[in-house]
């Protein structure tokens, strides 16, 4: 401790900027970690809390995926011996059309029984007109709002509120306002209560419920009841406590959460390099100081602890800063994640407030400090090894010793071999990830040697371009590989990530566009809501005939897609009119015979599954799978595996007749319209809209609009990762700044000589810039190389564990080309300040003898 105060503090004070930069590395790393995790948690938490608040005293919920089920299930559940009370629920999310309010979660309940589970405390306004329960039930336009929502938007009892329904926009009458309570805080207060039967009609749900909420009879345990109900309702249903929905939501976001984890860890990893870099430099710079301490009797142990102590303090301060910063930006991140989740998964949620859990913060703090200490381990070890006699002599200590290089080479070669073995052996997930990790370690081991090699290679080039400045910039890199290599490594890692993500994004785009071009070829799509993934409202099948009758329409196909739980995972079921689809949209299966696939599917004798589902669930062609449905379990063979990106967790395609039979559901999510030749798309679109004007809420998208919409969602998905990439690059740039500030200190004398010898400011700057650009260039080369490897692994991970997408390996040349100026520009920016300080230092001091 006393050493820290006497030795470290003055050093930190002397190198304020460098200390700040070092700390900034950790701040950024921890901040990204905290922000991403907090935002993610907040979104999940908000969802769970909404579920929780809405659940009230509900102990179990009966659902059938998100398909809903026939009303008579309610009687079965109510008749169960362990059930005290069971009430039906419908949930729908509608757009309020109020600026800044977003969507409103409508809970359709049966008021005559529901109060056993939920508390509805109503508050009558001053002008209480009707708050008669009979009126509420009798009038389908009745709605009850929360006090929060009503006050914010100046609604009172009797106010009218327009909402989109299947029958177009309708005005609802506020017949009650709920007092603030647990329930009213669900969905950020944007909650409304409607009679369940009115909700069925309003949202085109037919005679179906989304869910049954129930409480268990005294004397029965929840587990008993769960067991009883499972037997009663069959495998097509899920019987879970309300918290189960939160888990399902999380499962659905699996791919997304994994991305968040990878990139937030990555940010920390890069922060670690900044710390390592700083400490490696500090140790070499303070060699003589360490030598003196050793000469004065400090043990190796004490020296090691001195540096570890410094890193712990830096880590602590940086992590604290990161926590604050992270929590501050978490709100914005949460908003964007929320939007993304709504758009990608169609699950609306309202992360009203961002709440950082103590565990997360404590964890992040610990990780930050640990990262910092780990990063300082090697430098601290080097410091402890300092020989007191040699340390006090002047000499070159920055150069890598031949022995060390050899050791690195050897280690790298061995690990590379192991990594390749891991890859070829394949199979187990652990082996695969170990191989990935080893590949990264190899690249880190080699990065000093490689950056040295590259610096030597570019020296003639730089010298040719700028005989003095260029040669000296290259020499600076060559002379101090330790100073340079950590920055290069940090840059390499972040670029490798950029390349991999870009490659993945590109491959995804290619695949998605391919899929869209084959699978989504109708001219028009008719949807009940603006958002194609929202499934709050359904169309009746009778509309198919009406649409077919519209002039210009050649063919109408009905599609119903729902998310169900298959093998404990939420997957998408898409019911299609197979025989019609076969004629318009013939897909070539990845596995299986196209003719047989369509024939068996149309006949209801087989199922088509998406490639990603097959991959994630290890399904094979011909395998008989069990798809649970409310009216029984479908046991059919897989007759074809096709590319389909409707859902990240996978898709099961079946014939509409099969779906109708097992779900007893003939509603439609989307009508696919093919036009007669000669018919103009805009004309027909207009006719469809006119046909339903005032009767139904209908959204018509052209083929291009739908594809654009999907691509926009895809963009959004990747935009989040690009933010993280930006942070990674920023951290890498911090590394460059750090390296350069050290470099100009080291080169102070040299730069002084240059100035004495007639170097103008511009020339001095140029040598610093060239050094930065060289770091950037080497980082680019190594980054691209590692990126090429990384991309392979990322695609494998996506394929195996995230989305099951079979993506083509394609090096993202355009991104790489764009990265060159970006990184060189960033390196240049990083060099501006160091260059200025190099130019403006005192010449006399620079030349003073040490």
């Amino acid at each position, binding site marked *: 401790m006393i050493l820290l105060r006497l030795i470290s503090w003055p050093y930190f004070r002397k190198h304020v900027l460098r200390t700040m930069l070092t700390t900034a590395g950790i701040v950024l790393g921890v901040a990204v970690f905290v922000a991403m995790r907090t935002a993610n948690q907040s979104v999940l938490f908000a969802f769970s809390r909404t579920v929780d608040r809405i659940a009230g005293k509900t102990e179990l919920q009966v659902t059938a995926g998100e398909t809903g089920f026939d009303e008579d299930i309610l009687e079965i559940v109510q008749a169960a011996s362990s059930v005290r009370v069971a009430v039906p629920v419908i949930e729908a999310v509608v757009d309020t059309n109020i600026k800044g309010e977003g969507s409103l979660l409508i809970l359709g309940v049966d008021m005559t029984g529901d109060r056993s589970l939920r508390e509805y405390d109503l508050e009558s306004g001053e002008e209480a007109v009707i708050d008669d329960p009979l009126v509420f039930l009798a009038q389908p336009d009745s709605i009850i709002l929360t006090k929060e929502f009503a006050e914010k938007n100046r609604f009172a009892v009797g106010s009218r509120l327009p909402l989109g329904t299947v029958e177009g926009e309708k005005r609802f009458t506020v017949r009650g306002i709920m007092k603030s309570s647990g329930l009213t805080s669900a969905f950020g207060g944007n909650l409304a209560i409607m009679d369940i039967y009115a909700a069925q009609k309003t949202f085109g749900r037919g005679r179906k419920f989304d869910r049954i909420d129930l409480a268990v009879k005294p004397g029965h345990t929840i587990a008993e009841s769960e067991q009883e109900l499972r037997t009663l309702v069959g495998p097509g249903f899920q019987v879970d406590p309300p918290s189960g929905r939160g888990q399902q939501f999380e499962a659905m976001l699996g791919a997304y959460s994994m991305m968040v984890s990878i990139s937030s860890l990555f940010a920390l990893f890069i922060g670690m390099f900044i710390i390592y870099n700083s400490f490696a430099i500090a140790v070499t710079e303070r060699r003589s100081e360490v030598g003196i301490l050793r000469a004065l009797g400090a043990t190796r142990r004490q020296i090691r602890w001195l540096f570890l102590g410094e890193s712990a303090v830096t880590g602590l301060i940086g992590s604290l800063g990161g926590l604050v910063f992270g929590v501050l930006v978490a709100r914005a991140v949460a908003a964007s994640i929320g939007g993304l989740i709504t758009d990608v998964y169609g699950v609306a949620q309202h992360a009203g407030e961002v709440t950082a859990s103590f565990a997360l913060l404590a964890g992040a703090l610990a990780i930050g400090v640990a990262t910092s200490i780990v990063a300082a381990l090697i430098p601290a070890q080097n410091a402890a090894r300092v020989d007191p006699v040699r340390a006090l002599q002047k000499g070159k200590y920055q150069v890598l010793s031949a022995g060390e290089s050899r050791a690195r080479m050897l280690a790298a070669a061995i690990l590379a071999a192991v990594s390749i073995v891991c890859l070829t052996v394949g199979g187990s997930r652990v082996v695969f990830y170990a191989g990935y990790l080893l590949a990264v370690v190899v690249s880190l081991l080699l990065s000093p040697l490689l950056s040295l090699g590259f610096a030597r290679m570019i020296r003639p080039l730089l010298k040719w371009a700028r005989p003095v400045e260029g040669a*000296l910039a290259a020499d600076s890199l*060559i002379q101090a590989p330790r100073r340079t290599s950590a920055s290069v490594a940090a840059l390499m890692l972040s670029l490798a990530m950029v390349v991999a993500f870009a490659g993945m994004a590109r491959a995804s785009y290619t695949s998605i566009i391919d899929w869209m071009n084959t699978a989504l070829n109708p001219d028009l799509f008719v949807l009940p809501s603006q958002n194609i993934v929202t499934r709050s409202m359904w169309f009746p099948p009778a509309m198919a005939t009406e649409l077919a009758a519209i002039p210009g329409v050649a063919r109408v196909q009905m599609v119903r897609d729902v998310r169900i739980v298959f093998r404990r995972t939420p997957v998408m079921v898409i019911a299609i009119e197979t025989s019609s689809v076969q004629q318009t949209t013939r897909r070539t299966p990845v596995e299986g015979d196209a003719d047989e696939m369509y024939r068996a599917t149309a006949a209801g004798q087989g199922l088509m599954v998406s490639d990603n589902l097959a991959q994630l669930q290890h399904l094979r062609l011909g395998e008989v799978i069990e798809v649970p449905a409310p009216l029984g379990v479908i046991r059919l063979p897989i007759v074809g595996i096709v590319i389909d990106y409707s859902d990240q967790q996978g898709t099961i395609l079946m014939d509409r007749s099969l779906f109708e039979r097992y779900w007893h559901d003939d509603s439609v999510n989307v009508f696919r319209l093919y036009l007669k030749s000669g018919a103009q798309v805009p004309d027909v679109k207009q006719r469809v809209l006119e046909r339903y004007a005032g009767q139904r809420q209908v959204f018509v998208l052209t083929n291009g609009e739908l594809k654009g919409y999907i691509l926009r969602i895809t963009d959004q998905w990747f935009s989040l990762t690009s933010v993280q990439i930006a942070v990674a690059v920023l951290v890498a740039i911090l590394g460059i700044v750090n390296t350069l500030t050290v470099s100009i200190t080291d080169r102070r*004398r040299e730069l002084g000589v240059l100035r*004495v*010898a*007639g170097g103008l*400011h511009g*020339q001095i700057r140029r040598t610093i810039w060239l050094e930065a650009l060289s770091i950037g260039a080497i980082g680019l080369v190594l980054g691209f190389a590692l990126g090429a490897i990384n991309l392979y692994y990322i695609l494998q991970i996506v394929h195996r564990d995230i989305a099951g997408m079979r993506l083509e390996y394609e090096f993202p040349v355009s991104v790489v080309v764009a990265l060159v100026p970006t990184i060189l520009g960033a390196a240049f920016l990083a060099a501006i300040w160091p260059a200025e300080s190099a130019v403006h230092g005192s010449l*006399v001091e620079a*030349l003073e003898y040490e």
Partner: protein
Amino acid sequence: MIELDHITKRFEGQRQVTALADVSLVIPRGEMVSIIGPSGSGKSTLLNLVGGLDRPTSGQVRIDGATLGGLSDDELTRVRRDKIGFIFQFFNLLPTLSCLENVGLPLHLRGWPRRNVDARARELLTLVQLTDRMEHLPEELSGGERQRVAIARALSVYPPIILADEPTGNLDTQTGSDILALIRDLHARLGSTVVIVTHDMSVSQSCSRTIVLRDGRVVEDVRRSK
């Protein structure tokens, strides 16, 4: 011609140090002057001011009639690169560059074409009798050889003024006198003005004029005939 007009240089700090107090000097063209004095007498400061490496607190430095005060850093550098060559006690060669490159450095900085730079550097190294060491790195040379390279670098454009700060201070006696002989020889052949800061009496005695500084003041200014 070097003119110092009432030069005062103070270093601000917790303890104010007056390095030079109201020094006025004129060193005519072609003179070889030595400046001597004990440590801290201000002789290096004087040299730095003449070389434009530092700026006086008050007073004016004029080189060939041009006032240095008021010039920007780059303008100072231009004066320096055209008129002044520097020789240091610790040579200040760049360790990563070969002798040829070190000598060519100021020429490259002036933007000379590569071919000319190479030719001139070779010429200069021949001048300092290092024809066989051209491609060597400084660390491969002896101290005397390094100083020769440094001298060759200082001569790059045959500047009218050469400033040397303890050029023999880091060398053994024999080598030191060789270097001094070289400087004298060059002075004679090129006719440059040479100012040598030294505390080596043998060096000062070989100069035609010796200025003695003590506590920032000129206490003696001796011209001796050859």
